[in-house]
């Protein structure tokens, strides 16, 4: 009870104070609105819909299967199917969403929709400055706000997007090869293009 412990503690705080001026290790924060840290690759906030090509309406990967709508724990996804089918990247006829709404005020950023999606159509965004004074319309996002091009996905999650692109390219080649083989039955198999892993290099 002689105050030595308090003095020891004060020396520690003084070291930290002085250290914060020259030691990067001790200075761990940045001044937020002026400076932001780049998000890490795995970071996730709210979902977005991926589309291929230049046109969001035509290239949407979503096939309105409603798996994500069923699995979403807080039930923040609302889908209405468009019964007019459109061909997907393999040329197969698929349904499309007429309405795809996500109430981002309800979404809890768990990423389960991404995990269960069999079409790689929904992925996690990294936007976070979403505050608005319009509680209802401003936080209920439709296809218009949710659809983002594949290049955007590539920019956010490079590793995952490259893997998916490679797989899709391979599938497309396989389908083409199968179609070609069907069209020209007598043609020798050696002429078929090999299912090369081209997308991975991109």
């Amino acid at each position, binding site marked *: *009870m002689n105050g030595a*412990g308090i003095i020891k*503690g004060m020396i520690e*705080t003084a070291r*930290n104070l002085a250290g914060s001026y020259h030691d990067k290790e001790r200075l761990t924060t940045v001044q937020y609105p002026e400076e932001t840290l780049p998000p890490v690759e*795995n970071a996730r906030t709210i979902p977005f819909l991926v589309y291929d090509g230049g046109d969001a309406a035509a290239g949407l990967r979503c096939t309105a299967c409603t798996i994500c709508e069923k699995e979403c724990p807080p039930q923040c996804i609302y889908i209405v199917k468009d019964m007019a089918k459109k061909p997907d990247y393999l040329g197969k006829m698929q349904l499309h969403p007429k309405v795809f709404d996500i109430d981002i005020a309800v979404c809890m950023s768990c990423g389960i929709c991404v995990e269960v999606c069999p079409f790689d159509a929904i992925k996690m965004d990294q936007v976070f400055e979403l505050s608005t004074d319009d509680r209802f319309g401003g936080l209920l996002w439709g296809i218009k706000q949710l659809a983002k091009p594949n290049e955007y996905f590539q920019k956010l999650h490079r590793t995952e997007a490259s893997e998916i692109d490679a797989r899709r390219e391979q599938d497309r080649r396989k389908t083409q090869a199968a179609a070609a083989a069907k069209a020209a039955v007598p043609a020798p198999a050696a002429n078929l293009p090999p299912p090369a892993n081209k997308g991975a290099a991109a």
Partner: protein
Amino acid sequence: MMASHSLTAAEEAAGGQQLLEVSMGPQHPSTHGVFRMDVTLDGETVVRLKPVFGYLHRNHEKIAEKCSYLGSIPYTDRLDYICSLTNNWAYALTVEKLAGLAAPERAEYIRVILAELTRLINHSCLAGFLLQDMGAAGTPLMYAFREREKILDLFESLTGARMMCDYMRFGGCRCDLPPGWIEQARSVAAHYPAFLDEFEALLTDNEIVRARTEGVGVLGAQLAVNAGITGPMLRASGVNYDIRKVDKYGVYGRFDFRVPLGERGDTFDRYMIRILEMRESLKILQQALRDIPEGPIMDPKARLRNLRPKPGEAYARIEGPKGELGFYVISDGGSNPYRYRIRPPSLINLTILEDLCLGQTIADAVVILGSVDIVLGEVDR
């Protein structure tokens, strides 16, 4: 600090003294969330204390019974929101028991690493909050949060989120470690002892900390066992009970670590136990980061969607940073649990708050509550 007297409400009433009722909370900054203590005071001495909680009740158990098994995992993150990964683990372990799944070895190691990192976060934060409650405004808490940020960076680069990790799955983990993660984790584990030394230099020998904590809120071993107290709070009272040692769930049987025990069961012991446990956690971390094998991270039998375990029931528990965290799930063969129940360590450790506070001053009641280590998300569910 004045020596404590053991006075009961009846004695006070018999003495004809006027008692004062104070409602502390639910917005009081020292109640660790929306928690209220109805304290009856004689002068400054606590003669009666009634904990009031439920302000943060979110119907978690009922929601989980309406949700698929998978859909409950993000909700478990929000129980004890400082330790989302251990919550995930306890729930995943229960459903694995129910559905007959087993996580591969690599996944088990990842789980141990994440659980021990979570324990570091929880105990650092607890020490910081405890000091905040004593009036050391900010400094220890900010030091603890500075170290916590480094661990949260690890969580973010692995799971995508800093607090609501939603990472463990039935039969394994959601994704593998990104490149360079192990090295980063090793570096965090290597730098942590320096922080603990610094933290201890700041606090452990500090006369004010000693005066405010020694002999305050003494919890006897017998009461602790009878009340079902678990975790660091039980061990601070000298009872050697650590589920990591008792059950050896996961791969905990392979690690060499000790279980620190307190002697007096006072607030200082509860603080010190946490510091010592962090040092043991670092030992486990170093061994796990050294031995982690390559391999798959998911049980091949595991399916993400449409999990329908056979009818039956399962209870699994882990040594969470706050105590025994258990989940009890009954399946009727459907796609959602028939009954889903959580054994929350925060709530059960809170039940003896009155016994600890009787006869102490109101300022000590704040410190005692801080040393119990509650998170209201878990108390109220």
